[in-house]
């Protein structure tokens, strides 16, 4: 350190100190440089916001499984065992019925208003309408929550949406301890001359599968897709490695794609790459 009284600039003070360079400390390489705002994080246990004390002794544990556990054994059986397609299809059908009813009633409301100005029809009770709107908003909020809760724990839909949930505890095996299946893991190797980072996220609890990924695309942009993608077994057979080659002229941004199970075609996770400027 040098300290000097005001004087004409002295370049020697600020000149690089060659002796110091070899001792210079460096920051560690960051694992990532941006948030992961992954969609799979949207649908997790709502009670996870609350504190441990607030959660209380909910069966099935805290965090992402708490909401399901709160539904009790019947709900759990339904969400874990029932096939998703039938109830969901019924839900869609009923949902359309809901919409039709809404539209019908909306039209009635509009007619009621247009008739209420002076032709002797009963005047519209605004305060009552608004109260009801408010009440239903509150009630509908819980309805949607119930729906999402159900859907979030339907296995097929969960896989489709790439939901993240801690793996369920395996049932105890007769006469011994159950060994959970080794989770699938996919590492990433980047070939690029650009500042970039990449990551994968798989549905928790997914067993081994053969991954497939056709391209990484920029959401909402018109940049060309990244197609130089290749899966290979890691050395030692411990999971897979996704090799991504980024062309030199690839525009900066986030590119993402869905990792599929090549055998079933079902989504198993996502791969993302962020290319800096």
């Amino acid at each position: 350190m040098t300290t000097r009284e005001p004087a004409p600039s002295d370049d020697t003070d600020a000149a690089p100190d060659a002796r110091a360079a070899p001792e210079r400390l460096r920051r560690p390489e960051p694992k990532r440089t941006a948030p992961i705002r992954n969609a799979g994080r949207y649908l997790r246990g709502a009670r996870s916001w609350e504190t441990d004390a607030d959660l209380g002794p909910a069966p099935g544990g805290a965090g992402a499984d708490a909401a399901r556990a709160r539904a009790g054994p019947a709900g759990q059986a339904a969400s874990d065992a029932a096939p998703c397609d039938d109830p969901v299809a019924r839900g869609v059908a009923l949902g359309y019925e809901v919409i039709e009813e809404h539209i019908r009633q909306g039209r009635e409301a509009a007619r009621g208003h247009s008739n209420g100005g002076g032709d002797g029809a009963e005047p519209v009770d605004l305060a009552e309408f608004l109260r009801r709107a408010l009440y239903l908003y509150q009630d509908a909020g819980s309805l949607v929550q119930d729906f999402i809760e159900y859907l979030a724990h339907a296995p097929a839909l969960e896989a489709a949406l790439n939901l993240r949930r801690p793996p369920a505890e395996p049932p105890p095996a007769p006469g011994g301890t159950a060994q959970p299946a080794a989770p699938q893991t996919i590492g990433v190797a980047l070939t690029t001359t650009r500042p970039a980072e990449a990551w994968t996220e798989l549905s928790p609890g997914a067993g081994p599968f053969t991954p497939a990924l056709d391209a990484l695309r920029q959401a909402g942009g018109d940049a060309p897709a990244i197609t130089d993608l290749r899966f290979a077994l890691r050395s030692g057979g411990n999971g897979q490695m996704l090799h991504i080659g980024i062309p030199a002229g690839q525009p900066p941004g986030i590119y993402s794609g869905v990792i599929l199970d090549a055998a079933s075609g079902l989504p198993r996770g996502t791969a993302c790459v962020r290319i800096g400027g």
Partner: protein
Amino acid sequence: MTGQRAAKVAIIGSGCAAMTAAFELTRPELAGRYQVTVYQTGWRLGGKGASGRGPCQRIEEHGLHVWLGFYENAFRLMRECYAELDAAGHPNRAFRSWRDAFYPESYIGIADPDRNRGSGHVIWTSYFPPGKGLPGDPLTSHNPFTLQGYLLRTGALVRALLLGLETRRSGPAETRQPDAELEAAHSAPPTPERVAERSLRLLHQGILFTAAGLVEAATLLELVLKALPSYSDNLLLRFLTAFSAAVRNAFEELIERDDESRVKWEIIDLVIAIVVGVIRFGLLTDPRGLSAIDDYECRDWLRLNGASERALDSAFVRGLYDLALAYEAGDPARPGLAAGQAIRGSLRMFFTYRGALFWKMRAGMGDVIFAPLYEVLKARGVRFEFFHRLENVKLADEATLAPGERPYVQALEFAVQAKVRSGGEYQPLVDVHGVPSWPAAPDHGQLVNGARMRREGWDFESHWDRRKVADKTLKVTEDFDFVVLGVSVGAIPHVCKEILARDPRWRDMVANVKTVATQAFQVWLNRDARQLGWPGDPVTLSGFVKPFDTWADMTHVAPREDWPTPPASIAYFCNVLADPQSPPADEDTDYPARRRAEVRENAVRFLKQDICHLWPEAVDGGGQFRWQLLMQPDESAEQTAGEARFDSQFWTANANPTDRYVLALPGTLKYRISPLDNSYDNLTITGDWTDCGFNEGCVEAAVMSGKLAAHAIAGNPALEDIIGYDHP
């Protein structure tokens, strides 16, 4: 990091971000791996959060500071700070814990021009219900911010907002008993059949309540359709659009005559637009989360999704813009908020607050935040070098870099503004009723030639006062290993010329991450709020007349000041200060004084013309402001009459580059650089202007950024422990 010695970290600046970085890097569990020195202009810590004690030990702030109930990282930091001080048995503290230092504020108001009468204002106020837990409580999950979680809170929030809303002209708030049948049904296992059955039953109960219900049902359908590609997204959106338009048209006609109904509908209208937009823009599955719409201006995005012009111009929306000081160049005609960040901020603000929506400090922000941080950090061995103005961040010559070696900071060049007598450390705090506090002016007695500096009016905090007593250069490895650059983005062009010359990303950042000057004034009055004509409890109110659209009743800090006769009420007012056509030159030493004069003029005009809408009893029969309401600190001095009495109050023009508030304008957030960025491998930046996960100017963003800066250097704290960093 390599080597066994403690790494020397130079932290430049002392706002929330810089102090957080210092706090994290000196945690006891890191066992002294980092030896931190803080370099700060002038005599006090705090940056934009600095405050000072003026005459009668009155608290003088840069502006109004309220902590929101979702500031999880910031509250956690202060809870740890207070706990550490308490454990150390620090004597004479008025605030032994963070709960002593903060109090929950649930009474919020918004001012709305009275459209029916064509003049004056309607004041809307609401008590927000307490949120479960307290901010900074431990969480059971790393990322609790989920759509499902938001939906859970929607009902309670909207109920509070709408049923709790009342105007001065309305009667008591409506109440409603819980629906026992629904409560019972809610505890049963959810199945699609049961939910659909309930849905239909509810639908048949009324008419207009179907508005929000439809949107919710359609939101659900969007999820279903994503899993069943045989259904078309367009079909769903068609339903949504048709229904929303029909209901809006019906309501637009119905609400013309009724203020209360209008406000209620405006909020419902905005909620519908957000839900529609989330579906239409595919935000549920976009890897960018809400950031995918950051190029849209928030109002434009809501308009795209069907929000009515009435709702977009509502007091509710204007209040949010006012709270975010979201006016480019300080021009009220140029509101600007990036849509994604605005929605993220609103969701966080209304749906995830704990304890209370707002928390107010029981003394100045400097006293409640920065004095405890200073004391904890001092006890941990952090050195503070006051009166150090950074002049240049000097990079290593590129020619000297080894192959593959990243650029790095070679030297830090400072102007030393003053030297401390006897060469020791400056002692910055004074005790006020047991609260270690920052004075509003330096203690010249501790400074070499201090008397002369005071006589000559050296302004150590002015960008335009370049006086100094010495230069100082810190060299890499010799004086520092790592640099945490915690000055505000407004100062970057002045101190990082070399980086800007070589790095287009930094140039883009400086060109696009805009800031705005702010103005504030405080008045101490000899009548309480009710005597002034305010009918309710102490309030925090926004959406009022420009330029002082935000008012906070701060009477609660009176016991922390030292008046012979305590003021009956204390009021803070603030908002943006319009920029001049061209920025002032560095040589324009008169610039701060001109801006201060401008703020004084604004404040006086405001009191004369506008305050009567909030305080009708503050004006006399002729409509003139009663200047005698203002308390003069020196009661023995000649009592000033008329407008000149305002000179005894406090006002400020925050025009320094480092004092300017950071904006979140549409299309600009992508130019922010993260503290994790390691383009310069011994330098990290920090502040609410960085890409920190919550890209809006506020304490929480600054604290998150400070934690990121510490992580960049030490790998600690873990990113998963920065609450909300991965928020969608």
